[in-house]
């Protein structure tokens, strides 16, 4: 049996329409399920806030291990690859010395020991994030709880956010990161080559009611909480103790505060 051109086109058209319809029906169901599931976890366990912030209590970071423990916990959890070179390097939380972390403005007579004393640096989750403004696809966005987050599937890898960030907090996947992950953690997705990434204040853990991984491993060196809550520990420290922030003069309002020279806090 043979069909003519018109019949063929009509049948092909019908089949196509059916295919589209089916796809819509399926994704429709799936979306509903996901939404329900998300709401469930939100109600049950999540810790909520309107302005997440972190205080780094430098008095608690004494040994090399105090720093490494924190970095390792974060990088292992988030599948941060280890390229073993600085060119392609990806880092979410790491240590750098005072002199470079707080670039500019320190006095020239400062003791060598202080100049080179290490500090923990990470994304500042700014209140006015220049990276969010720069992103041409809204792949980087600010959540209602203040966390500056990323959608790795939307990022086109233009690196405008990296140029915009004055803190050097962002890394780009110059190579496929997967072969360079020692042990894949099932808790967080791995990334593909060609997208930017950075610290996310562990929103995936907050949603489960847990503290960020770095905070958990810091033995009290990192204090995490809601800056908008007057009773939170971070708010009390920030209000009553002397804290410094990186490049506050740029007006981005960094939400990572450094408590220097004080070991007892609220």
């Amino acid at each position: 049996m043979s069909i003519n051109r018109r019949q063929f086109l009509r049948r092909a058209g019908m089949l196509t329409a059916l295919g589209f319809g089916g796809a819509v029906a399926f994704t429709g169901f799936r979306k509903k399920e996901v939404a329900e599931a998300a709401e469930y976890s939100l109600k049950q366990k999540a810790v909520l806030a309107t302005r997440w912030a972190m205080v780094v209590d430098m008095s608690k970071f004494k040994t090399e291990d105090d720093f490494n423990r924190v970095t390792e916990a974060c990088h292992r959890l988030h599948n941060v690859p280890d390229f073993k070179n600085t060119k392609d390097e990806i880092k979410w939380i790491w240590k750098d010395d005072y002199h470079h972390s707080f670039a500019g403005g320190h006095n020239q007579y400062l003791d060598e020991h202080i100049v080179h004393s290490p500090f923990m640096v990470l994304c500042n989750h700014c209140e006015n994030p220049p990276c969010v403004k720069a992103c041409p696809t809204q792949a980087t966005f600010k959540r209602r709880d203040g966390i500056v987050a990323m959608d790795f599937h939307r990022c086109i890898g233009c690196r405008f956010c990296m140029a915009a960030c004055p803190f050097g907090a962002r890394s780009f996947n110059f190579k496929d990161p997967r072969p360079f992950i020692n042990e894949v953690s099932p808790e967080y997705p791995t990334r593909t080559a060609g997208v930017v990434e950075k610290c996310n204040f562990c929103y995936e853990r907050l949603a489960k009611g847990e503290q960020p991984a770095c905070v958990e491993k810091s033995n009290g060196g990192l204090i995490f909480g809601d800056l908008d809550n007057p009773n939170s520990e971070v708010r009390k420290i920030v209000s009553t103790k002397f804290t410094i922030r990186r490049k506050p003069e740029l007006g981005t309002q960094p939400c990572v505060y450094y408590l220097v020279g004080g070991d007892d806090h609220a």
Partner: protein
Amino acid sequence: MLEKALTGSKKYWAWICLLLAVIAVGFYAYLNQFNNGLGVTGMSRDVSWGLYIAQFTFLVGVAASAVMLVLPYYLHDFKKFGKMVILGEFLAIPAVIMCMLFIVVDLGQPMRIMNVILYPSPRSVMFYDMCVLIGYLCINLVVGWTTLGAERKGTPPPAWVKPIIYLSIPWAVSIHTVTAFLYAGLPGHHLWLSAIMAARFLASAFAAGPAILILLCLIVRQVSKFNPDPEGGAIQSLVKIVRYAMIANVFFFVLELFTAFYSNIPEYSASLRYIFFGLDGHSNLVPFMWTAVFLAFAGILLLVFPQTRKNGKILPFALLAIIIANWIDKGMILIVAGFVPNSFERVVEYTPTLNEILVTLGVYGIGLLLITVLYKVAISVREEKDS
């Protein structure tokens, strides 16, 4: 009219084949980058933009420079530019296309480029840059094609194209202003964070762009019967534009130097110290910067004195000096040095890799091919009419 690009001399085809070969090599290099990621370039966590974005910046200027012909011809009725205007427009089209290609080759995820349109972000300067570049490409395609088509038929261009021509004038200024805003609005890069950035961009564009155009006109004169400057004087008028624009460009740059060095704020001058003298023992860009300084002043001097400016043998070299000075400034130094020192005041240098250079040459090859084809069409129409 495109069929006119399909017939030509042996030399014409040899040139086309050469360009195709360059493009093929560039494409192969790009495939390598596409498969292995931007790790094959010299870019790093610290210098996250390099040769590609620098070429983009330089070429936006070349594209914008068509306005230096359109404005005198259409607004001031400067008849001498009559034969040259089309060459300006046909230079702008390949320049914009090259700009777009340099953005695409710089992307980590080029297959997702439509996300810029799917999720328009009016707070991002990149969004506006996309809008003005696409707009400028369309304007020049429509204007160039209709005016040349009308000329071929021996009729005046249709009336509806006039408003589009006038629109192209502010639009040309806008593409380079928005491109400057990409950099000038970012906190933390003091080399870029300057109000005069857009003005500097326009000045350097109106120097380098017309200089390239004059060289192209001189080549057109050599290889065809079509003379873009039949009455004489058009090229010399353009030379004067190049000269004043270049003087303005150098002046604006000196303003930057004054503010940075006299204020004595270390962050403001760090990048400039890096490009002129080197910083913390790193000085990759120093020889290039001084070459640019020398060429800029040599070019200006040669264009100031009538004896050298009107000397047909010296003029091309003077223009070449201006073009190279601008290319070093914008196509090499400005973007890279903006990242030096980095956010931690450390000096991490950038050197492009061979793969990156081949991709860059490939894009330039595509641009030259487009220029060749478009110029061939324009020249053939003119030759046809003259004979």
